[in-house]
């Protein structure tokens, strides 16, 4: 199994959720984050002061999938989250040794 983690713009969450459901994803874990990458260093002016804002709010999605689905899910996320502007985010895939469903104690692919 794989864990697909996506850092996306908060306002694209609904689109991304729809897209991954369309490719068969059954569950997801969502949390708040902030980050920077290439978009680093945009300048804001506030109350007479100018400064660099580097940490921009993002949403993190974590999705457990079967090995075979990792690519499809990644692609679905990328296309649904894309606005073409800097700061759109990152998606990465990590190998998973095992998954367990708490409710039933099932393991492996059955637990997804």
């Amino acid at each position, binding site marked *: 199994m794989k864990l697909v983690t996506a850092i996306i713009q908060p306002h694209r969450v609904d689109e991304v959720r729809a897209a991954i459901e369309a490719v068969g994803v059954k569950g997801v874990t969502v949390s708040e984050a902030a980050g920077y990458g290439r978009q680093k260093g945009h300048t804001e002016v506030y*109350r007479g002061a100018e*400064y660099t804002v580097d940490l921009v709010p993002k949403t993190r999605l974590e999705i457990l999938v079967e090995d075979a689905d990792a690519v499809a899910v990644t692609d679905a996320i990328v296309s649904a989250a894309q606005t073409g502007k800097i700061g759109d985010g990152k998606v990465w895939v990590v190998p998973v040794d095992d998954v367990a469903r708490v409710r039933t104690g099932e393991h492996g692919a059955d637990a997804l």
Partner: protein
Amino acid sequence: MDSGSIAWILTSASLVLLMTPAVAFFYGGMSRTKSVLNMMMMSFSAVGVVGLLWIVVGFGISAGTTTAGGLFGNPSGEWFMQGIFQNEDGLAVILAAFGGTFAIITVALISGSVADRMKFSAWVVFAAVWAVLVYAPISHWVWGGGLLSSDGIFKNFLTSPQDIAGGTVVHINAGIAGLVLALVLGVRKGFGKEPMRPHNLPFVMLGAALLWFGWFGFNAGSEWAADNFAAQIWINTLVAPSVAMLSWLLVEKIRDGKATSLGAASGVVAGLVAITPAALSVSPLGAIVVGFIAGVACAMAVGLKYKFGYDDSLDVVGVHLVGGLVGTLLIGFLSTDTSAYADPGLLYGGGWQLLGAQALAALIVIVYSGIMTAIIAYAIKFTIGLRVSEDVEVAGIDFAEHGETAYEEVR
């Protein structure tokens, strides 16, 4: 017994007391999450310390018989308000307390310039000493028949300054003290580089709203009667901050492209500050002018700290010193011939002497308050110390000084 006026001053005193917790929210909301409580505790402790000291000695210094050539009132006979509390004139009794609420908020206003970095114990000592040695005498000068009244240095002058509710005593005084205290303390780590944005803007707006509400007592209560002049003051206290809010937002819109909620809240306070000395002197049209100029001037002034490098963290100087000066000086132009003072400003047929008197009064307060604040601040610095360590400042003063954080986030 004019029970109507007593009722109004009982109400006004209550309103003014509410203004200090309002300052706690106005400033507390502007703080960063890690120093909210310390910011609020500076206001709360001002109520405690100054509330107590006003009863013990401050009232006597402020309202006692003029001594030392108008420098202060003689507190003997009024220790612990022993004299006044047996007075059968209800108005006199409640006015004695009313004055205390002014002392409290003046001290609380100063705290905005020292956010995030002043030792709480140092603040408490500062508040106590400053209230007695700076605020109480100055209030005597202006309202107790002292130095800056028609019985003082203006005795043989053509006119005496107009300051119905404390442009000099409260705002210029607090503003200059805030500047000096910030200079002695030094800038915060990250000042001018990190954003340090308000952590909770609704709290800032709550503070501004409660301040405005309380300010009706502050200004219209300073008429010391429920009459037509109190009503005129009320109207001016409505319209000046309304206009200052709009003109502040206009400056932001033109300069930065966006009208902010912090700007609206600050504009309201700037307008309130500026109309404070002038509310009985000017017409509603005059109040509109005062508000407009205050909003523009203060919106520009809050950026100066970055140019000059003093860390007036929450803009005590930009709002109270500048706003207080705007209102105090504009009286010299806008005081009407129909005002309660019957001493018109330049635009209403008067001469330059009123403007001169206003400027002189402002100057004297600035000099006295500035020097005394520096002395008190240095005295504390070299004894118990003024500032927390850099570690504490970075990690957050709330937990280090008060053992608490404002919000419990992990449930």
